[in-house]
């Protein structure tokens, strides 16, 4: 699989705080990368740099093998990087199609200044329906305002919106944090579908079960550094947690401990 996004030597300071310290990251097309770490580990700073909210002090970002300067969220989006933040950034007073196209409305004719162009509402509606359909997202009423939809439906719409416009990378910040079991299920299914469509997906999550289920690779950060990488599986969960909390020696769960006759020695 081709490398969709590569970050090399990313460093970011906020005053005296070193938020990112020489971070490397690679994510491939058709891969789900989980970005893990405790609060303040630098995950959010890293994705904000990738999505153009912050600029790196040092280091470089390559998208599809080409070095880019992501000076603003708009530039990142133009490079095919879409981010779904925890607050979803949805418009409760608008329908899914208007949400999809907010700020990038299809409209014409071209010779008019953009604000005065006539919306191509049918075209946008069709395209939205097509994307939702392709991602097998079913809504009770596709024309209802997003504000009338449940948390899971809203999350799914936000993710689908990102997927619709992301030609390279979809970044999801805590996509299942506020959802119930069934609604989380729908979002996880959607993430798997994004992968099968060839998107590179970066997921920030604290839900280890969800990470184990959808992620091909888990990268753990602590204090602005990458401290390890694992293939998420029920077996590696312990090691991942140990990396996150940063006391690998005390918390590690190496195979010989489990088979030792004295029983479990881990805390």
């Amino acid at each position, binding site marked *: 699989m081709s490398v969709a996004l590569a970050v090399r030597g990313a460093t970011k300071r906020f005053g005296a705080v070193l938020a990112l310290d020489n971070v490397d990251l690679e994510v491939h097309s058709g891969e789900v990368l989980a970005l893990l770490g405790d609060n303040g580990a630098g995950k959010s700073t890293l994705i904000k740099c990738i999505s153009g909210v912050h600029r790196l002090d040092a280091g470089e970002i390559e998208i599809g093998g080409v070095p880019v300067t992501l000076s603003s969220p708009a530039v990142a989006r133009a490079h095919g990087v879409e981010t779904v933040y925890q607050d979803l950034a949805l418009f409760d007073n608008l329908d899914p199609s208007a949400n999809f196209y907010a700020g990038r409305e299809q409209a014409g004719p071209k010779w008019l200044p953009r604000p005065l162009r006539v919306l191509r509402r049918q075209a946008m509606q069709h395209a939205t329906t097509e994307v939702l359909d392709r991602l097998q997202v*079913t809504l009770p009423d596709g024309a209802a305002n997003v504000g009338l939809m449940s948390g899971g439906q809203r999350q799914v719409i936000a993710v689908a919106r990102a997927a619709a416009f992301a030609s390279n990378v979809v970044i999801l910040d805590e996509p299942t944090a506020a959802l119930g079991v069934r609604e989380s299920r729908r979002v996880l299914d959607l993430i798997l579908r994004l992968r099968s469509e060839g998107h590179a997906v970066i997921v920030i999550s604290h839900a280890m079960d969800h990470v184990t289920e959808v992620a091909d690779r888990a990268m753990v950060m602590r204090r602005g550094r990458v401290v390890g990488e694992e293939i998420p599986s029920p077996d590696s969960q312990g090691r991942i947690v140990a990396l996150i909390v940063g006391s690998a020696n005390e918390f590690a769960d190496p195979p010989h401990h489990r088979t030792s006759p004295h029983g479990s020695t881990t805390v």
Partner: protein
Amino acid sequence: MTSLASAGDEAVPTAARPAASISTPATTTAGSTTADHHGARGDGRYRLLRVALQVIRLGPVLILVGLVAAMWRLSPVFLTTGNAGNVLSQSAAIAVLAVGQLLVILTRGIDLSVGSTIALASVVGAIVFQHGANGPVVIMVMLAVGAAVGFVNGGFFVWGRLPHPFIITLATLSAARGLALQLSGGQPKRGVTSIVKTLGGGSVRWVPYSAFLMIGVAVLVAIMLKRLVWGRWIYATGGNAEAARRTGVPVKSVLISVYALCGLLAGVAAIITSGRLNAGSPTSGNLAELDSIAAVIIGGASFLGGRGTVVNALVGALMIGVIRNGMNLLNVNAFLQPIVIGAVIVLAVETDVIRARLEERFRVRQAELS
């Protein structure tokens, strides 16, 4: 759901679907079957909530129709052409103001200065007329004065990074009124140009010109709101300003344009008002800002931004007009009028609260069904 499925079927050629998504994960299939099953059972309540929300949305129109019907029964004069024309010409200025106010309220803002803007534009228009300007010039000047006040509001709000437009429009409410008094020496400037007089006071048979002006403004703004990118940006800004900014909506320009247009429409209201009075008066438009806000809210727009249509604003303005006119016809003590209007405002806001609660229940229901 049906529309989604059918539209999707014709829109997506099967070949375009990636092979992976054709093989539906078993879990999803199971999930949607459960939803259908639940749907069959829970449909009744779901539909009831939908109907209730629909009624609330139509509420203001229904109430206006009810009011008109009641007045028609109570007073033989009410539905005569003469009185209908009267109601229309009294409501026209408020309605035009309300359309402008709606734009501002859609973005979660408020414009307190529109009443004073009427006075300033009227006085300046009268002065320009007295200095020999012809009709079109007078009208252009009045509109320009209105737009200028609006631009000042928007400019200070956006570039001055004020926390809320209340402050700056409160300031221009005061300043524009003061300027109008200053320029006119505190006295109405008698006489207006004939176009203004016709637009404000003339009529075609019993239908006042100002009613056509009102309809024209309403249709124009409604089209801009619903059909143009600019209108979509207004709703986006009012719905979630932060998200709008992040998705690339030029929020600052949108806000400034909204205040400028609201000021411009105050200029239109000034034309109607001074035409009716046949004078540019520094006291006209007093408290009109409150009428315009009341009209928008009574019409059913949300004070929290993002919800409301031009029809809402028109209906609200007409409702205020009908209540005032009706109470006059019925010889109700004039002091009662503001109390009734106040009660209607409370009713409208409570309805909005109920709407929000119903929508919340609707959401919960959806989560249960999905």
